[in-house]
């Protein structure tokens, strides 16, 4: 029965879902019960983060916060009346909030946050939800009474579906800005940049590892699903990801979401900016299917050389102390490419002072079960409610391994 709902939600056209396989296997084993939840991710301007943090505290959900910045293009006319514009990148600090809620509360929560932070106004932030499986000590809870009191009916806001969340992990310092610029030039969305460390090559080396920087720049993009693989291809080509060791791109599906389209600041020459027009049509149509790109076909010859389909994203939130063990476990079963970033938790119940990290790895579906198994064994899910493991489908991954 549950199975059928799963199928409906993650995409009717997909016959195979690796995360569902993991879920089924683990259910059959009966040791750890995966919870079927929705992960809400909200990337919001720093000025609004205090407001949202307050809301989430009252909502009594465990929220993980990561610092980020978003990049927009600042378009200025050239001085002295010279025709033409200058385009600069401008960064604004932003905050990424991630929290899980029971699936039935997703719409209300998202609507309440949109109303609270005015996310329907472009330039303020992005919010989206993903249906996934979470292994944790307790299923997520939510203060229903509070949510009920904040319930709003956003008639004029249409949440979009058929979106894709693309995560670009880049190893070269400064590449993040380049990729963000490319994304802006392609008119995809406002890119969010975060920092992370990726230790997999380093962990396998001796002391010589200090010569390889562990820092990665991660660019988060949200785009229509139908364009995602061709855009991934384009971005990968521009960032030269076909060369080894430069990074990789993968994507995960979004159930519903709202995109920040305020990509260019200044220099508006029409009554409405192109972004506003697109946002208006999006909300009229309720989806982004109409925006099928013509330029995103890519060069056919290099196509699919490095694209793996049917991957799985496994995310672990855990105490920083154990991350080395968890990563070693991943490596031992052959899962490479874990990126780790620092998160701060705000939680209704204070469970001691911990420094937490969030580690994400994109792995082939065939490996998913083994990885989840070994992670579960080493984690402390059965004892305390700190570690959380999330499994999510990742339909296409652009990776060139070493």
């Amino acid at each position: 029965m549950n199975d059928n709902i799963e199928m409906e939600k993650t995409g009717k056209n997909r016959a195979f879902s690796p995360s569902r396989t993991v879920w089924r296997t683990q259910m059959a084993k009966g040791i750890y019960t995966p919870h079927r939840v929705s992960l809400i991710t909200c990337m919001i301007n720093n000025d609004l983060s205090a407001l949202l943090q307050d809301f989430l505290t009252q909502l009594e959900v465990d929220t993980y916060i990561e610092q980020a910045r978003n990049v927009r293009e600042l378009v200025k006319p050239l001085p002295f009346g010279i025709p033409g514009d200058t385009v600069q990148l401008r960064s604004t600090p932003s905050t990424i909030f991630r929290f899980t809620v029971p699936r039935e509360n997703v719409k209300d929560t998202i609507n309440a946050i949109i109303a609270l932070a005015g996310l329907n106004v472009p330039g303020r932030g992005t919010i989206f939800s993903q249906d996934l499986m979470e292994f944790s000590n307790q299923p997520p809870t939510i203060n229903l009474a509070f949510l009920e009191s904040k319930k709003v009916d956003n008639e004029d806001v249409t949440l979009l579906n058929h979106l894709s969340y693309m995560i670009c992990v880049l190893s070269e310092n400064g590449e993040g800005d380049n990729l963000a610029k490319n994304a802006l030039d392609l008119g995809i969305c406002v890119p969010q940049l975060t920092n992370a460390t990726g230790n997999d090559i380093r962990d396998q080396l001796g002391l010589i590892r200090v010569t390889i920087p562990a820092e990665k720049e991660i660019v988060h993009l949200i785009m229509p699903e139908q364009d995602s693989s061709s855009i991934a291809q384009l971005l990968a080509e521009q960032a030269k990801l076909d060369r080894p060791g430069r990074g990789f791109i993968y994507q995960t599906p979004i159930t519903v979401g709202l995109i920040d389209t305020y990509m260019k600041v200044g220099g508006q020459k029409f009554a409405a900016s192109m972004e506003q027009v697109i946002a208006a049509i999006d909300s009229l149509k309720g989806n982004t299917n109409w925006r099928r790109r013509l330029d995103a076909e890519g060069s056919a010859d290099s196509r699919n050389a490095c694209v793996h389909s049917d991957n799985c994203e496994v995310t672990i939130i855990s105490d920083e102390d154990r991350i080395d063990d968890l990563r070693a476990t991943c490596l031992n079963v052959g899962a490479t490419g874990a990126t780790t970033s620092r998160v701060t938790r705000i939680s209704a119940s204070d469970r001691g002072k911990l420094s937490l990290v969030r580690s994400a790895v994109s792995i082939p579906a065939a490996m998913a079960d083994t990885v989840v198994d070994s992670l579960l064994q080493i984690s402390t899910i059965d004892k305390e409610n700190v570690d959380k493991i999330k499994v999510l489908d990742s339909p296409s991954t652009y990776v060139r391994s070493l």
Partner: protein
Amino acid sequence: MMNRKRLPIGDSLALIGGYAKSRIVGQIKSVAFIILYLVFFQVAILRTPLANALGTAGGIALVVFGLAFFLEGLVLGMMPIGERVGVKLPAKVGIVPICIFGIILGFGSTLAEPAISSLKTAGATITAWDSPLLYMILDKYSGMLVNAVGAGVGLAVALGMCRFYYGWNIKPIIFVVIPLVMALTVYASFNVNLSKIIGLAWDCGAVTTGAVTVPLVLALGIGVSRTANKGSGNDGGFGIIMLASAFPIAAVLGLGLYLNTLIPAATTEEVFFAPENKAVSAQLFNGNEAMIAEHAFTHGSEKGRRALFGNDSAKFNQTILAIANDESVCRQYLGNQTLQDWLAHRAGDYERGLLSSVEISSEAPVTEPLSKTLKEETAGGLRAVIPLTLLLILVLTLFLREKIRNKDEVALGLGFTLIGMILLTSGIKLGLGSLGGEVGAQLPKAFASEEKFVEQVVINNFDSTMLYSGISPEGENLTFFNLYENGQVKPVEYNPDYYDSEKHTYTQIITEKPLFNSQLSVLGIVLVLLFAFGLGYGATLAEPALNALGITVEDLTVGAIKRKQIVQVVSVGVGMGIVLGLSRILFDLPLVWLIIISYGLLLILTIFSEDGFASIAWDSGGVTTGPVTVPLVLALGLGIGGALNISDGFGILAMASAWPIITVLVFGIFTRLKQRKTLKTNNNE
């Protein structure tokens, strides 16, 4: 743990090569400005050839390697350990042990990185009769001074920890602490003795936070604030350094208040050295009368020395001659100074005449041998790095019972830090410092309007028949003689005062002409101030603690504020601060007013700043005065202060740490306005 892969040697070398190259090129970029600037100034504007160019170049190479090692060591070893202790402390223990740890760490770091030596350099020209309190604090009670500063830093770290632990806002703390310190300063300015130590107190605040302490304290703060259940905000870890700069000021002023009750009042030189006042004056020298005499010779003028011998000329002459002839008497009166040096800089005309047979020249002091410098700096480096690291490791392993992650990396990092520290400080002593010192010493002639004594040469068998006459366009009669020297004949103007007809000797006084004519000394002053700005700017670019702060800021803001931006903004601020501090010395402005105006402006700017940015800005003030800036700035201040007979070189560093706060706050407010615009334009839609 998984099996380690082994790389072929070729690959390893390629990796190490690329890694080393990137680090060294980075540091070459950061020191290039200051070096080219100094050389340009020396050669092109002051028109003096570089002395010991090879040694200087070697020293600069050491600085580059030192900076590269040091910074990499901080990132690999020091900062991860500091952060880990910060993360684990609140998890395992309560606030009281955290505060105790903070006090120990703050106190220990002050002892480990003694800024007192640079303060003593700044106060080297202080005279006991003019500023007895200042003299005593720097000399007799310097131990007490270090302890007071240490206590201040300790309290500051403890308070900073409390702030992170309880999630207090930085602004209320700034608005309480800074006005308090300002009020104390104003109070001190009304007392003659106390007003003299204001410069010392504020400079103490600036220099206490050294190159090792800053990154360590930053990392610790980041650790503690990471575990605080407070959520977002990007000032995690900042704010302690600002407190560690402010509290020592209060501590030193407090020490001054206490000691002021025990000290004789300021007086004139003659009164101070007069035999009837010996008992009173001896209080400043632990009752040691021999030290009074030494002070008269090393710090006083001829007047003071005459007073010392009760204006008994015979005894005075006898002593002066004994100094020239007897090595032990020389040591007794001149201390470490050489007779030549003393004659060139300290002696009066009469004394010089008395010892005219002694050949004197004001040659630059012989540079210390490399091995000795390395030895000294190794000791200094060990003392700065080892105790603090040991404290952290012991707290982490024994007290908190935690493992050290990536032991090999941390060990390598600590080794790098140590090597870097040693290379850096030796390099500064051998290269950058001597270059800065040379320029600093030459600089006063840029605004000097009179000729300055350089050296004297005694010409034997002089005969007045050698003289001939000349005339100037105004019709003035002049007398010359020809001097044959180095294969050249040059006419020298004859001054009958220097001719000794009995011995048939003529003492030729060689003087230095001012760089500009006296009418143009305004241009000279502008030039000096311009030089000061560039010096401050360039030296700060290379400051390792600032780079560590920049890395931290870039990390915490996920690159929204770039390291380069912070480094630039801070460097400009230091340049401006040094210009202001130097103006105080040039124009003898009261330091208290400069402090009140600068910090008043700071408080106003703070009101309009974002919380997170305010703490970053206030911290950047403390990091600027490190191992690169301090020696250069002091050389400049002392060179100019010495030429103008100003009693001390204090105050420049205080200004150099106030102004970067101003520039960073302004930068923050502007950035903020830009970011706000993005949000605002959308609200209007």
